[in-house]
């Protein structure tokens, strides 16, 4: 879907991106993470040519990005940023419909798409569509920002710390919605963050950058289980690593299918970290597990959390 081949970027006197090669496959949720100045935002913005690269090649769906006009390229990619950047003089409907309008969709089709997106992001379409951004909360504004990025069903969604300015509760909700939307639409996502917990929660692949270079790339579990060097180990948190490892796995992958246990069930898509929290809070060593519709499907034991994955499942 997106392919970096030995890409470099220099700013007067210093090198922001050294020699970056990276392939983001279709349907991946790729999270770029690193400290400030590591080049993660530069890498993201080179994809839609908000920043032009100096060396190497970047391919989008097999074609070099320089073969597209920048505007055409950007209209095919969703873009959401931390400062949201909603157009304050446009209503919610006009904001979300911005890209479809640029692409010349008929009015009725834009309207239907706006309704669909507002419902998908748990906003009431009839109450929200005619409002101006300043009358919305921060969380609602970022929902509109995400809806605008998704409006024309882009094959790639680029997000630059989209949830960074939100309060923890709202951030948590939006992360959950993002996962749901990504799973449902199969959109390829490239997201920049400096929050390792966000990366573990959202990513199918984490790319850790430092000083304009990729230090490690892999699934959250791979990175947590075997950090490539001290920098990565520090970055993923030495003492919290175990907890983060639990956060990277779903209850559904470790549960004992068919067994039962007493109490309020966990869902299969809860993380093992949530399961651990529940074991401690309820003072039990086994919990029932239900599927997303609420039907009991099995149980999970406290010991299952530390069970070594079977060799064929190991990274």
């Amino acid at each position, binding site marked *: 879907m997106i392919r970096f081949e030995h890409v470099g970027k220099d700013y007067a006197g210093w090198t922001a991106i050294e020699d970056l090669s990276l392939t983001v496959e279709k349907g991946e949720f790729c999270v770029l993470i690193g400290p400030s100045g590591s080049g993660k935002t530069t890498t993201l913005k080179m994809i*839609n040519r*908000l920043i032009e690269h100096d060396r190497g090649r970047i391919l989008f769906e097999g074609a070099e990005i320089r073969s597209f006009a*920048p*505007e*055409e*390229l*950007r*209209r095919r990619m*969703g*873009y959401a*940023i*931390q*400062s*949201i*950047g*909603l*157009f*304050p*003089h*446009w209503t919610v409907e006009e904001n979300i419909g*911005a*890209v479809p309008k*640029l692409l010349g969709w008929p009015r009725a089709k834009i309207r239907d798409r706006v309704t669909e997106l507002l419902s998908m992001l748990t906003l009431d379409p*009839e*109450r*929200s569509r*005619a*409002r*101006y951004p*300043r*009358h919305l909360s921060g969380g609602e504004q970022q929902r509109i*920002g995400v809806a*605008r*990025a998704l409006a024309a069903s882009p094959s790639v969604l*680029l997000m630059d710390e989209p949830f960074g300015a939100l309060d923890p509760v709202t951030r948590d909700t939006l992360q959950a919605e993002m996962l749901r939307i990504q799973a449902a639409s199969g959109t390829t996502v490239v997201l920049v963050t400096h929050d390792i917990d966000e990366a573990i929660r959202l990513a199918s692949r984490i790319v850790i950058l430092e000083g304009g270079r990729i230090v490690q790339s892999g699934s959250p579990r791979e990175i947590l289980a075997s950090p490539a060097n001290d920098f990565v180990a520090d970055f993923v948190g030495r003492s919290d690593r175990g907890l983060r490892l639990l956060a990277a796995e779903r209850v559904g992958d470790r549960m004992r299918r068919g067994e039962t246990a007493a109490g309020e069930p966990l869902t299969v898509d809860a993380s093992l970290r949530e399961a651990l929290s529940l074991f401690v809070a309820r003072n039990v060593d086994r919990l029932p597990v239900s599927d997303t519709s609420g039907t009991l499907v099995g149980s999970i034991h406290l010991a299952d959390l530390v069970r070594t994955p079977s060799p064929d499942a190991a990274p």
Partner: protein
Amino acid sequence: MKRIDPLVPAALALVALVLGMPALKPLFAWMFPDQARPLYEQDSFLSLTLGHLSLVAISSAVSVVVGVAVAIFVTRPAGRAFRPLAETLTAAGQTFPPIAVLAIAVPLLGFGPLPALIALALYGLLPVTEATVAGIEQVPSGVREAARGIGMSPAGILAKVELPLAAPVIVAGIRTSVIINIGTAAIASTVGVKTLGLPIIVGLSGFNTAYVLQGALVVGLLAVVVDLAFDRLGAFLDRWNRDAGAKTA
């Protein structure tokens, strides 16, 4: 209860004064008993007002077109280098008193409306340019980045994002420029243009305070009416920032 819009009585008073000045003759005769001719009657106040307004309208239109164009140019990447130059030139335009511009322009261009138009247009340029630059610059960088990021063209960003968001500030600059020009246009009568400055200048040279008062009253009221009208326009352009959002229940 709705508050009465002050624009309505002010505009009515202006129309009444311009059309009904002859009816006030007894009042001026009573106020200035020593004057043989207490009312300026060489021209109708309607023709003076229309002359005044057309001079202001043309010179302000030039100020707005040139001022906004210069401001747009110096806020584009290609024009950024010219910004200090443009600021110096527009500031110089306002530093020169219009009367000095007239003094220079008349020997070159002769009497009539042209030197007056040039003097007024130069004088009104600075507020428009400054306000347009300020208005475009206060567009939040996140909004501009989002506009680029979703694939708007540079011209589209200017027309659909920057100018509409800057409009209230630009209109405030135009308002200042026009109000200054309504007052300043009176001096154009010194070079033979028929404006509301004519009774003032005739009155001053002939020691007829009544004439001065009549001209000044209409100019003042005209400025008030135009100012209130701009206030309405500014509020309209800024409506997304004020009203309570959704109208639908």
